[in-house]
């Protein structure tokens, strides 16, 4: 029975079945299946979709739909982990968001999905996120990485604000900062004192791993 639930959970993500993923996750909890196994099922299938995307077999609409299915199941499993006081394995914790004054969502969400697929714990704060909100989340989740997205460089002062606040609080060395977005360049990343930039979503995952010393 447990095997059936796990397989169905995997299939729901691969088949972009948002409601199915949530309902199989609830079933996993009801049948007292190890939440770590359920979590594995989710990450295995999102990685499978991510890999197919990497090979050029699947495209962004499929990646986004699989991410939605995973996201619908994730909170249910996480709740169970919390209840059982089980810690999940993770490559690291990432706080991600689009900076204040900017409401571009898609690129940031792609990076977020691929980071989850690769085994990061990701807290996606959404769009139009102020410096204070970033700082609060970094503290709350004890983030290893802060990823800030912005389409235009006019938001530079906002990003600089986050970085200065981290310095003031003595946290700058504890968190790696990566930036990305349509008009962002290596030069810009350097100018605001970020640790890294990559122009593509798959590249952002490689960068995240490098920043925290994996691979």
């Amino acid at each position, binding site marked *: 029975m447990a095997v059936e639930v796990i397989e169905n959970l995997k299939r729901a993500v691969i088949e972009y079945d948002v409601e199915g993923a949530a309902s199989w996750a609830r079933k996993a909890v009801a049948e007292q299946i190890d939440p770590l196994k359920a979590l594995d099922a989710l990450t295995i299938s999102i990685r499978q979709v991510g890999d197919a995307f990497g090979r*050029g077999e699947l495209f*962004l609409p499929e990646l986004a739909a699989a991410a939605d299915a995973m996201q619908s199941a994730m909170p249910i499993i996480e709740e169970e982990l919390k209840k059982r006081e089980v810690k999940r394995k993770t490559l690291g914790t990432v706080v991600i968001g689009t900076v204040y004054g900017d*409401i571009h969502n*898609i690129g940031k969400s792609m990076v977020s999905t691929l980071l989850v697929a690769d085994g990061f714990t990701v807290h996606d704060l959404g769009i139009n996120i102020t410096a204070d909100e970033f700082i609060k989340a970094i503290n709350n989740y004890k983030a290893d990485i802060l990823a800030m997205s912005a389409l235009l460089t006019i938001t*530079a*002062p906002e990003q600089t604000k986050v970085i200065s606040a981290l310095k003031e609080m003595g946290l700058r060395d504890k968190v790696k900062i990566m930036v990305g977005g349509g008009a962002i360049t290596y030069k810009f990343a350097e100018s605001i004192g970020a640790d890294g930039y990559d122009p593509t979503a798959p590249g952002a995952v490689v960068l995240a791993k490098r920043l925290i010393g994996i691979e």
Partner: protein
Amino acid sequence: MLKGFSRNIKSLEILTDEELAAIHRGTLDVLETTGVTFDHQETLQFFADHGCQVDFNNKRVRMPGWLVEDCLRKVPSSFVLKAREPKNDMKIGGNITYFTNAPGMGTIDLDSWEPVTPTREDNVNAVKVLDSLETVHNIGCYTPYMEIEGVPPAMTMIEGMANKLRMSSKVNQEAYQKDSELFTIKMAQVAETQLIGTVDPSPPMTYDESACKAMYRWIEAGFPVDIGSGAVMGGTGPATIAGSTITNNVELIAGIIFSQLIKPGTAIMVADFVHPMDMRGGHPAFGAVECALHEAMFTQIFRGYGIPTHHWYGFVSAKKMDFQSGYEKSMIALLTAMAGTNLVEIHGAMYGELVWSPVQAVMDEDVVGWIGRFLEGVNVNNETLAIDLIEEVGPIPGFYLNKEHTRKWWKKEHFIPKVADRAAFQEWLRTGKKDIIALAKERTEELIAKHKPKPLTLGQDKEIDEIIEEAMSYYKQKGLI
């Protein structure tokens, strides 16, 4: 008044009457049922006071069909734009097509093809070149650079506007960021010219606070408003061309209603820059054929409403000036001009809005001349049919080169590109095998060296400097500098 190009050909129409009606009905349905978000309290109240159903909690405005139809009728079908010099005034609408430049974040190194942050001098020279080009009828938004070395981001648009007013006496269009319009409006007023004020909804179907404020401010200044929207099909709009036409219509028409409720009869132009999404990278696929289909539909629809249209599609996916960049921009520009758009943005545009080059602008003048010539169509009358002349010349050994008819007509009928390589093959080999880029570089340098824009008066110049100072302290206070 600038003549632009008269469209003397039948307009390209790709929709049947039934399809047009279905799109119109769909647009009205969405405006009334789904509605549009206006993220600005004052604007929500304003709509509520004018017969719209407003949900203040989720900031949604639903617009009844009768109001939509009523407001569409109030938009003037043409309007005049006042330039610094009367010879540069424009009459937007009807069968006239004008051309304008695109912006870019930076410029490009023509050897390495890498982006470069322009200097203030580059920015001055870029506008100088645009002022000198005959087929640049007005100067566009952010022109041309959105980032200038040594200029704080908050000041780029303001310093940019000062530069545009100093380096050109053509009409300017301008966008808005962080209240920049407060200062650019004043500058235009000092220079005694009108701006085309831009207002951009954010797809899908949202007007943010800055867009709402810009709408009130442009209208208060008495400037025409260009409402432009650009969803990415499959991302911020439906993946289908028809579906993304509905959301785009809804975004534009919601803005039109907003403008006509503020001040009935406000001059409006609408712009469309919907692109398909590149489903590998998530960015817009610039120069795609779907853009041309979208724009042809959009132009047909708004021509039907009697509202002037603006084509915002000069950009390409190509990174170099090459075969791909040539076909991407030319095909879309030609098709949309044939569909009857009133203003085509093209000069200088390269990849996305990321890079811009004056050399590209000089080459684009050839594309514009080519398209403009096509729009003007064919002159058919007794003299151009030349039956008598054909009788006089007869078969070989007769020829036409030495005839008065040829002298009179060839220059009227034949378009001569300014930089394209049209040399005979042997001559081309002998003269250094120059291509269009090499020829355009030479012409660009010459224009920068020789062109003298009409200066502002000393008084105007000083007042504009004062506005720049005022803006500097405004943004310092806001913590943006």
